[in-house]
């Protein structure tokens, strides 16, 4: 009896492996393979076509000690992540709290606010470039009605990164949907009990809603942090001649890496850059995971 059971379990395990096999093979061939190759090539002067000589840690050393643009690009990216992650998270929570109300026509609003998340890519960036145009754009026109002399947005280095962050705030619909779903899942009995105890709406929000959605906040923070470090397209499309201008204010890490890889053909150097970014993101994600138990609340909570 026991024997057949373990045989069956073994068989099932085997089936499991068989089913995930395409993924495993794909992962080894198309993800792990290139990943290890890039680690190796980051210690060479690989230029894609004709050379690949071992140069030791020269790429890394050059990046840290001789390359001013490396630090500029890292700073720009950190700036962007530092502001965009908290702002988009708060924005999405705020929006979903509003859209969680029971008012007539709420579905129309939900659709409207989700719509920007459906649109994506270069079309949206071009649209925003027109909206943000200092002379003829709609945003400065509307600011003008209130007597505000709008900034030069994408032409003023102090405003270029805030411009992109505003643009990101416009498309928080995707994260909003997650928060909304999770808010709808919060048990009504908790609110009823709080109401009987005399808690007002704000206290209910901060003491019931927020703790109950912390798992989703955690997920959102981790993924948007990683996504934030990968910012590339926005700068490539929206900066003057795709170089990261004006005055290098939109030279993000990945844009500089791309330039090194495909304009200078310093592929080994670019791969070293990608590993530095990988390590930064890895450390930040580890910190996030370590801090999570302090503030993320899982229902059924056995402290996990």
């Amino acid at each position: 009896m026991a024997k057949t059971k373990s045989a069956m379990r073994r068989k099932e395990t085997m089936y499991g492996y068989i089913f995930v096999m395409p993924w495993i093979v794909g992962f080894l061939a198309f993800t792990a393979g290139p990943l290890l190759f890039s680690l190796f090539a980051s210690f060479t002067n690989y230029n894609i076509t004709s050379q690949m000589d071992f140069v030791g840690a020269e790429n890394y050393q050059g990046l840290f000690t001789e390359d001013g643009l490396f630090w500029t690009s890292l700073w720009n990216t950190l700036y962007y992540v530092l502001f965009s992650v908290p702002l988009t998270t708060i924005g999405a929570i705020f929006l979903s709290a509003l859209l969680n109300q029971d008012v007539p026509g709420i579905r129309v609003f939900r659709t409207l606010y989700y719509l920007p998340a459906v649109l994506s890519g270069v079309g949206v960036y071009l649209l925003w470039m027109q909206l943000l145009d200092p002379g003829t754009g709609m945003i400065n026109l509307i600011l003008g009605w209130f007597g505000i002399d709008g900034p030069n947005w994408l032409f003023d280095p102090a405003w270029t990164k805030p411009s992109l962050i505003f643009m990101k705030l416009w498309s928080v619909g995707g994260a909003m949907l997650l928060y909304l779903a999770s808010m709808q899942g919060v048990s009504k009995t908790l609110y009823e009990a709080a109401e009987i105890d005399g808690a007002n709406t704000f206290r209910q929000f901060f003491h019931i809603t927020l703790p109950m959605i912390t798992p989703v906040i955690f997920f959102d923070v981790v993924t948007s942090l990683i996504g934030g470090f990968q910012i590339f397209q926005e700068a490539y499309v929206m900066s003057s001649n795709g170089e990261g201008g004006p005055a290098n204010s939109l030279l993000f890490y990945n844009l500089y890496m791309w330039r090194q890889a495909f304009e200078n053909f310093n592929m080994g150097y670019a791969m070293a850059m990608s590993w530095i970014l990988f390590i930064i993101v890895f450390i930040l994600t580890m910190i996030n995971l370590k801090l999570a138990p302090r503030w993320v609340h899982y229902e059924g909570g056995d402290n996990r």
Partner: protein
Amino acid sequence: MKKLYTIPAAFLASSLFLTGCAGFQTGNNNDSSAENEEGKVVLDFWTFWGSEIRRPVIEKIITDFNESQDEIEVQHTYLPWGDIWTKELAAIAAGDPPDVVINDINATALRGEQNQAMNLSEFLAEDDISDQFYPELWDATLYEGDSYGIPFNTDTRVLFYNKDAFEEAGLDPEQPPTTWDELEEYAAKLDVKNGDDYERIGFYPLWGINYDVWMLNANGHNFINEDNEVLIDTETNLETLEWLKGWQDKYGDDVINSYKAQIDSQQGNPFFNGSLGMYVSAPTFYTQIRDYADDLNFGVAKLPEMEPGNGHTSWGGGFVAEIPAGASNPEASYEFIKYLTGAEAQEYWAVQNFDNVANIEAAESAAQSDEFTEDGTMVYSMATEYMSDTLLTPVPVSAPDFMGSVNPKIDEVFLGSKTPKQALEEAQADVESLVEKNTRE
């Protein structure tokens, strides 16, 4: 017993699935040199000319070539501008590149150095065609004396001016400005101010071209010379930058930005309706005048020189036809390139696209073409003559992206956060260390 087979079977299935995706195909063996059923060699030709204007022209040239002989059959592959060269690079690395590709002329030497493009000197030794092309273009294709691509087309920058506006301002419409001083003087006369707003702006040097073209115009040479000497922080560049800054101060950012937005919108270019007196652009700007402002009375001139005798140097770019390293039929590829850059095909391209071509004979006969209108002939022949004063800016192999270190500093001058002197000094230092780093062994 049965279950023993399951795992190997699964392995087999998944590896079949993978090979089905052609993940492991290797090219670059002689079997892959494509031949079609008639025994003709098939060439894959990559361009980014997919627009409804250019595509029929290049495809007509290809058809003509295919019909002109019976050994080679060229097939055209259109790839978008943003993709073509990264795809080409990947194809070269994979050992299965296209046979002929159109690429940027200014980075030809770099691709030669990196062994991405094939050295053509072997073919040229047998049949030297170099003197068919403008020398400046030909020289841009050389790395260590060997050619890595044959020039296809180019452009130069010329001054368009509004003759009616000249007359209105009391200037001779047949005497465009020839020096920077005259340019300033004429622009001031052309300015029409109404309160704080401009009804007409005479000229602003940074619309249509960038600061580097003016520095090239003033210097007559590039920022980095053949001995890897960096020539950015120079007296002439400083003077140029201060001169440009003076224009910015004169008109002010608000005016400049609102005009810039109209220029970027193409149809709304203020030059068309006479609210901009003079404008620098490539000769193809004429096709926009033709399409959007047919009755505009305009003239074209060389860029003014910094001071008399300094030279009217202008800037041009362009493209080459080249054979990627590892292409399987270089002889056939070269045959096709010869046709593509030969007088007949080049003239057809020039006339149909109103584009400057690299072949001298073709450019000169296109200028006489009766398919152009009077204005068209005027612009085209002027651009052809101007090629002798046109310089290219081949990227220095020692620092291909050095402009990435210069542009941000110059940006800061026009943003007001650096003086011209500071910006040039910093750019000089940055580019010097870049060159030093890249040439160190």
